[in-house]
């Protein structure tokens, strides 16, 4: 099958064009010799199936960043039948140099000038036919966002595949290219986005910028949770209903142990995680929307001064913020970072973000042990501690993971994504999340079920099971924190997903709802509860997060650090709090 590679700088709308050409059938795959997965898809062009590969956004093929290394390695190690070089039509003069680096004898190239709509709005005109004649490479104007020019592009690709286009143009040195661009592209003296300038005057205001940013993020979280909570409750209800009406009767004939493994282990475990998928989809969409408008790069601008003191940069802050919803997409977001040191430091810090799953646990314990008046203050203190532990982690490890990334980023004009773009984007992200998460979570829930159900004959989750033994075994370590063996077992559950903590307490205490709240309030006091919450906040991230860290970092040692460091920090934090608080109260 013939292969087409899509190459371009960041912010040129590469993924929009990829989606426009392929629809929603993209697959993430491994390539021999490459360290990262690339998005690719098969599509039908001119009666022939071809393979389109999306290379990472690159500024320069001569650079040493991981993205640039990947693009270079791909182009040198894999056969490419046609290269699509994607340039922003309004920035063609500075981007055309990339063409000189990619073009080589025998490689048919098509220059795709994207965002034709934006260029037209700025009054920029491109004589693309004449430009094509001068540089000896076909040039095509498209708007991937609105679909204009895509038919023409497909025709050109078919011609190129059949050898009807000149390949590897002779005169492609960057000076000649820039001269050709100057002759054929006219840019008005003042080409600027009037709306963007107006919005930036407010949103990037030296003093008002940050408060406005926090207000917008707060509204986004509010919207996600207000919309997502009813859907999540509905999902949870449907999952329970399916179990009691269909699965339980169907599996009634199976031996009790196997039935327990399938229903209480696999089905309940995966079901709990699945019920969070709607919330995650909405969160992805919300973040994608804010990201696609170009506002996140403004947030990086506003926060960079503060973050640089902790060895991070403005983008790290954006990722930490995304982590308050769910750590997993935040970790995947670190791919834009080119410096390994900065990327690893950011990945080490993200799991400190108080995610929505931990929030659930805290809401339960706060309601059980604190007066309503104190509740908001207790929750707020946990958010502050979340940020404090993130900054402490960064401060301690910034010499180990040195940030060598130059902080030079484009600030794109504000863009408003179309519905089609948002839906496709959300779909890709969710499929990616599900594919990676499922295997890990399945193994995790089976393991926890085995721990809480063996040896046979012991009460599930009780003191005589393996988990119970582990709970008593860990007691010397956990009792200085005020955490008893029953709560310790819940924390072991929480390792799979923090969402399971409350459900596991229900199993351990054999109580539900109000009765469970009362039972816990009877057994522990607020000092123990706060110590438990501190430990839950900081300790080992959930399985999905660890799986993501392992996937993104591709380093077992770093993954181990990302598990061990929070665990140690959690123990010390809870120990100091509990021992001091016990002296005082």
């Amino acid at each position, binding site marked *: 099958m013939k292969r087409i590679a899509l190459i371009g*700088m960041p912010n040129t709308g590469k993924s929009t064009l990829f989606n426009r050409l392929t629809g929603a059938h993209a697959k993430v795959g491994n390539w021999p010799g490459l360290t990262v997965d690339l998005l690719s898809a098969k599509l039908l062009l001119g009666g022939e199936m071809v393979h389109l590969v999306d290379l990472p956004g690159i*500024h*320069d093929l*001569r*650079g*040493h*960043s991981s993205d640039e290394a990947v693009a270079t390695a791909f182009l040198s190690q894999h056969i490419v039948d046609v290269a699509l070089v994607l340039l922003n039509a*309004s*920035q063609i*003069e*500075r*981007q055309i*140099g*990339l063409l000189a680096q990619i073009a080589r004898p025998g490689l048919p190239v098509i220059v795709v000038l994207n965002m034709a709509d934006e260029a037209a709005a*700025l009054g*920029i005109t491109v004589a693309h036919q004449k430009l094509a004649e001068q540089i000896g490479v076909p040039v095509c104007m498209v708007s991937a966002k609105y679909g204009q020019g895509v038919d023409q592009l497909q025709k050109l690709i078919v011609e190129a595949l059949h050898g009807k286009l000149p390949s590897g143009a002779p005169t492609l040195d960057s000076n000649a290219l820039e001269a050709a661009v100057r002759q054929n592209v006219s*840019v008005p003296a003042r*080409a*600027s986005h009037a709306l963007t300038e107006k919005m*930036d005057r407010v949103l*990037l205001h*030296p*003093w008002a*910028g940050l408060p406005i940013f926090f207000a917008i993020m707060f509204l986004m979280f509010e919207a996600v949770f207000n919309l997502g909570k009813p859907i999540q409750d509905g999902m949870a209800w449907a999952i329970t209903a399916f179990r009691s009406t269909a699965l339980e009767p169907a599996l009634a004939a199976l031996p009790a142990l196997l039935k327990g493994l399938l229903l209480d282990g696999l089905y309940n475990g995966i079901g709990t995680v699945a019920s969070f998928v709607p919330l995650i989809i909405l969160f992805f969409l919300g973040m994608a929307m804010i990201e696609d408008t170009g506002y996140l*790069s403004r947030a*990086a*601008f*506003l926060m*960079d*001064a*503060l973050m*640089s003191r902790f060895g991070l940069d*403005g983008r790290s802050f954006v990722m930490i913020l995304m982590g308050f919803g769910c750590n997993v997409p935040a970790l995947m977001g670190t791919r834009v970072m080119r410096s390994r040191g900065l990327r690893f430091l950011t990945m080490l810090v993200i799991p400190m973000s108080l995610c929505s799953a931990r929030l659930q646990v805290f809401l339960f314990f706060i309601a059980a042990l604190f007066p309503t008046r104190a509740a908001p203050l207790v929750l707020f203190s946990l958010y502050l501690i979340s940020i404090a532990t993130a900054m402490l982690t960064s401060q301690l490890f910034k010499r180990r993971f040195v940030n060598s990334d*130059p*902080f*030079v*980023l*484009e*600030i*794109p*004009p504000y863009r408003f994504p179309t519905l089609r773009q948002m839906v496709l984007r959300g779909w890709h992200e969710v499929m990616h999340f599900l594919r990676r998460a499922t295997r890990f979570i399945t193994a995790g829930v089976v393991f926890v079920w085995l721990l809480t159900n063996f040896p046979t004959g012991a009460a599930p989750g009780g003191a005589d099971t393996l988990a119970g033994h582990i709970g008593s075994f860990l007691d010397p370590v956990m009792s200085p924190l005020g955490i008893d063996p029953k709560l310790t077992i819940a924390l072991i559950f929480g390792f799979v997903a923090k969402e399971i903590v409350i459900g596991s307490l229900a199993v351990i205490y054999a109580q539900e709802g109000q009765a469970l709240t009362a039972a816990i309030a009877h057994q522990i006091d607020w000092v123990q509860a706060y110590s438990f919450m501190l430990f839950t906040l900081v300790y080992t991230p959930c399985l999905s997060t660890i799986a993501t860290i392992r996937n993104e970092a591709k380093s077992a040692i770093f993954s181990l650090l990302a598990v061990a460091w929070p665990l140690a920090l959690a123990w010390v934090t809870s120990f100091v709090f509990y021992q001091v608080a016990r002296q005082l109260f």
Partner: protein
Amino acid sequence: MLSPTPSPTLDRLQPGESATIIDLRGDTELIHRLTALGVRAGKCVQVLRRAAFAGPLHIRVGTTDLMLRLSEACCVGVTSARC
């Protein structure tokens, strides 16, 4: 021979000011990145704003808006005259 007075650098420009870029210093990686983003000798650069607490600069070169830290802006030599 006395060394010539160093030419001003981008980090000295105040919001609203502009100047022509003379040269790029610093390591190759940074120079490549700046060049790719359009910060090149002979181009006119305008400072739109500075972030609070000595944060990054918001600059414009041609049709591209960029942010860069002061530590990177001082690698960009500019003329003392406006453009």
